[in-house]
């Protein structure tokens, strides 16, 4: 039981997918201008990533491995994730058109969000079982959503700051992301403690 908790906590904080593993920076930079959209993007990614982790585990274990074609893993995972993203997009377009418009290009781009591919591959590398895979996927995406929201909160505040012109916008966002990453280094070693 505690080990599952450690999987989640480790994925959320210690090995945060964005700030420590530096995956998924594209939406992290792109959809963090407003808190509202960040929440939407976080929710969408959580859905896709958790589902993707589960599905890719199943496909990996029950299709690829029995067939002996593990080398197709990356390819197969991409296809699966792309399909899940497509479905998500259709659902969001139907249920929340404004969110759909706001997420804009980033919604289909969840497909190319390296975190979404990276996390299932990390799952394979860490030999997670199905539950661990799901938890790790969920934890990673919660970690992603969490820092995305916090980042959006900071960026909303930075909107009013008198930032030097060359650093306005993405530049200062990069600096901020760096400092956040630095702060998250404080969690280092926590998952090693027993």
């Amino acid at each position: 039981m505690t080990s599952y908790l450690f999987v989640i906590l480790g994925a959320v904080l210690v090995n945060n997918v964005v700030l420590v593993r530096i995956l998924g920076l594209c939406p992290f930079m792109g959809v963090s201008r407003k808190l509202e959209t960040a929440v939407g993007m976080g929710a969408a990614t959580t859905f896709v990533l958790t589902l993707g982790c589960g599905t890719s585990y199943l496909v990996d274990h029950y299709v690829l491995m029995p067939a002996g074609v593990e080398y197709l893993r990356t390819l197969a995972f991409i296809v699966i994730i792309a399909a899940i993203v497509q479905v998500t997009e259709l659902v969001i377009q139907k249920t929340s058109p404004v969110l759909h418009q706001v997420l804009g290009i980033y919604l289909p781009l969840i497909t190319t969000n390296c975190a979404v591919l990276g996390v299932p591959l990390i799952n394979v590398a860490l030999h997670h079982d199905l539950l661990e895979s799901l938890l790790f996927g969920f934890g990673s995406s919660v970690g992603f959503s969490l820092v995305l929201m916090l980042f959006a909160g900071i960026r909303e505040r930075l909107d009013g700051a008198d930032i030097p012109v060359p650093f306005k916008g993405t530049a200062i966002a990069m600096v901020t992301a760096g400092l956040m990453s630095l702060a998250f280094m404080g969690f280092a070693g926590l998952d090693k403690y027993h």
Partner: protein
Amino acid sequence: MINSPFVRKAASVQSVMLQVLLALVPGIAAYVWFFGAGILVQIAIASAAALAGEAAMLAIRGKPKAIFLTDLSAIVTAWLIALTFPPIAPWWLTVTGTLLAVVVVKQLYGGLGQNPFNPAMAAFCLMIVAYPALMSQWPAAGQLDFKTQLDLIFGGLRQVDAITGATPLDALRTALRAAANPDSQVHGLRAAQLMDGPAFGFLGGKGSEWIALGYLVGGLWLIQRRIITWHIPFAFCGALLVTAGLLWGVRPDAFASPVFHLASGGAMLGAFFILTDPVSGATTPRGKLLFAAGAAVLTYVIRTFGAYPDGIAFATLLMNILVPIIDMKTQAPVFGHKKD
């Protein structure tokens, strides 16, 4: 055109910052008493670097220099850096840290009042990540004379491992971890016994407990002067005591006492001077409580279970990240919109 109000109270950023600096004096005095005058050199180095960095950035940004250099905010950052860095850190470490703090963490965000992160703590984190060894060498109280300290600060090659050790916090943690190991010599010893060494005083590290007391005195004076409110120090100390007390209560042999935590490392400096930085900290009363309590828990966790000797810097940065959301969600109800 100036509009109403036409009268104003005599107050200025400069006077606020000056009072913060004054409040640091008792702590610094204790520091000098126990650890020698080297810290004064560090303070001077850091202050000079901070002013230089600030002046350069103001010049580049085309901002008025006179007014911003005399607001003393850079000096406060510099003093906090000097006080949190090891007193024998080489000069370039202090200078680099201070410049990073002032140039990147403060001025790139627009300077005074606009930085979301505490510059001094960001500098500490950057330096401890980049130079973990240099940032973890602390002399014991009264161990080094002023000349040796100067040599260490300005000297070339350093062979200090022989003469310096880790901070009391770090030492105790290492010892406790060792004590947990059945193969170790110290196995079975309790925290109280482990603290019997020369590095330890009555409550925390030898000497550092008096420095902490100095900070406490200065901090209380700041509260009395209404420069800071009671919320952050209270919540920080309270949460640290409770967290440490819980674990200590369950396993007194494996964890240090709450009082030790309060009197060691940067706890007092953090409670009264670092977390209370209004620019990067939470501002609503409820937010301040949450912010400081969160910082205390994180400090404890990082100190006890993490990889770094003290957690206050990382805890501050982590809570800084949360500040916009905390402030947003803890807005007090306004006049007429309160629920009775």
